């Protein structure tokens, strides 16, 4: 579904990624965890075309993504839910979701996509005429995920969806991500909430300082000593 090889990226002189390699298979949920500044967001930005990497390769189902413009990458079926949601605040929930189905491929499935989004997030149907900037953080996150789902993705990428949200809301959203995955959409989840991410995912990578320092089954990483010490807090060591 997605192959990233030896990706290196920088912001000006600031190196953000120095050789990251990961894969996401069809139908998988893969987590990418690590501390602040590790390069996780940078990696997602490179995949979605918002940032040009210095070197490396990104491909999906045989197509070289680096040769594509960001909107073409969306058409290929890779959708990013960016950090901070980035909704169109002046527009209603409905309008945000409708814009998600902008590409021709997505438009063909617009009706069924919208039904599915409202099924997954019933509160959005209630508030569909509401201006999105007046929604709560959790509801905005639902709109952001919904909007990405409207692009009819094969791979859904999320950048820190739990940021700024209450634990109960986070749990609900992660549950929904599981449901989305079960319906056939691959998921690449970047998270600082390592415990929740590793509980949801099948496989995971650990990114630190721009490099992949660990990978494997999520369950195994939950038991890994370094991961426990660095990310799961003192109580996890017990």
């Amino acid at each position, binding site marked *: 579904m997605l192959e990233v090889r030896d990706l290196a990226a920088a912001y000006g002189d600031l190196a953000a990624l120095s050789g990251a390699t990961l894969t996401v298979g069809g139908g998988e949920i893969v987590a990418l965890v690590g501390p602040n500044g590790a390069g996780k967001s940078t990696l997602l930005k490179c995949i979605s075309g*918002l940032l040009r990497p210095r070197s490396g390769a990104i491909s999906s189902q045989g197509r070289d993504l680096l040769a594509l413009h960001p*909107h073409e990458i969306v058409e290929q079926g890779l*959708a990013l839910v*960016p950090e901070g949601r980035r909704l169109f*605040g002046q527009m209603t929930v409905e309008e945000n979701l409708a*814009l998600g189905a*902008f*590409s021709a491929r997505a438009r063909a499935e617009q009706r069924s996509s919208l039904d599915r989004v409202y099924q997954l997030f019933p509160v959005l149907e209630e508030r569909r005429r509401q201006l999105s900037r007046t929604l709560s953080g959790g509801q905005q996150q639902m709109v952001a995920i919904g909007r990405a789902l409207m692009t009819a993705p094969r791979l859904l990428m999320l950048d820190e969806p739990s940021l700024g949200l209450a634990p109960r809301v986070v749990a609900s959203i992660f549950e929904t991500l599981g449901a989305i995955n079960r319906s056939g959409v691959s998921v690449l989840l970047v998270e600082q909430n390592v415990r929740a991410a590793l509980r949801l995912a099948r496989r995971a990578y650990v990114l630190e300082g721009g490099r992949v320092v660990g990978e494997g089954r999520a369950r195994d990483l939950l038991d890994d000593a370094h991961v426990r010490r660095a990310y799961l807090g003192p109580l996890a060591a017990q």
Partner: protein
Amino acid sequence: MSVLAQQLLLGVLIGGLYGLAAAGLSLVFGVLRVLNVAHGDLIMLGGYGAFWLFALLGLDPFLSLLLVVPAALAAGALLYWGLFASVVRFHDETRIKNSLLVSFGLALAVHALAVRLWTADERSITTSYGGEVLTVAGLAVPRVRLLSLLVAFGLIACVHLLLTRWRWGRAIRATAEDWQAALLVGIDVRKAYLLAFAIGTALAGAAGSLVSVGYSISPSIGLEWTLKALIVVVLAGLGSMVGTFVGGILLGLAEAVSAAAFGGPYREVVGLVIILVVLVARPQGLFGRS
């Protein structure tokens, strides 16, 4: 008292054209974040387009809008490709600076071209019905200027509908809000930029045509109209076509009041005072969102 009322009425009539002129600039600046100081010169070209069609073909200037608007649309697309497509690759500050340089060059070139083609003389289109004046409540309403106001409002309403009902119109609005988010939903932002610039230029061309029939044009009106448009954009804020139109009317009224209170030479000053006051008191403009 009725002299003031008359002045206010004339202010409203020209205000509609200020609004139309500003709408184009607002669209370009709001979506592309590019400041086209040649916008007024594009208005001037629109005026000369109508003038040419009238002088050579006898075409009524309101009818020639049907030709001028599509021509301006096409010209806008060409200008975008030729000049601004590379400017928008930069971010924010560089983008603005480069756009100022590029558009200033464009303004100089267009001005020189106009002088060469039409001489520096003032021109105006006088139609057979040009002198007709309606009398409403004791006030004189020049028919041509009233018609211009209505046409201006009609065009603004059309663009408003385009931006809300048309798929690419919504894409333009989304791009204006957050171009990266727009990319992430599959919008080709380059195309949104192109459309916004072309529509903005079309509005400028239309404004120019209307100016040439109700008022007068000359090659040097470019900077003056860019400034008027800019004042209205600052006053009204970004994001609302109708708000921009209202802002134009307000400027027209303010100018009339200023001229009545302080005398003719102070007509233009009020616009600059408005910019200062708005930027200090309510930077997002009357109808913009903070």
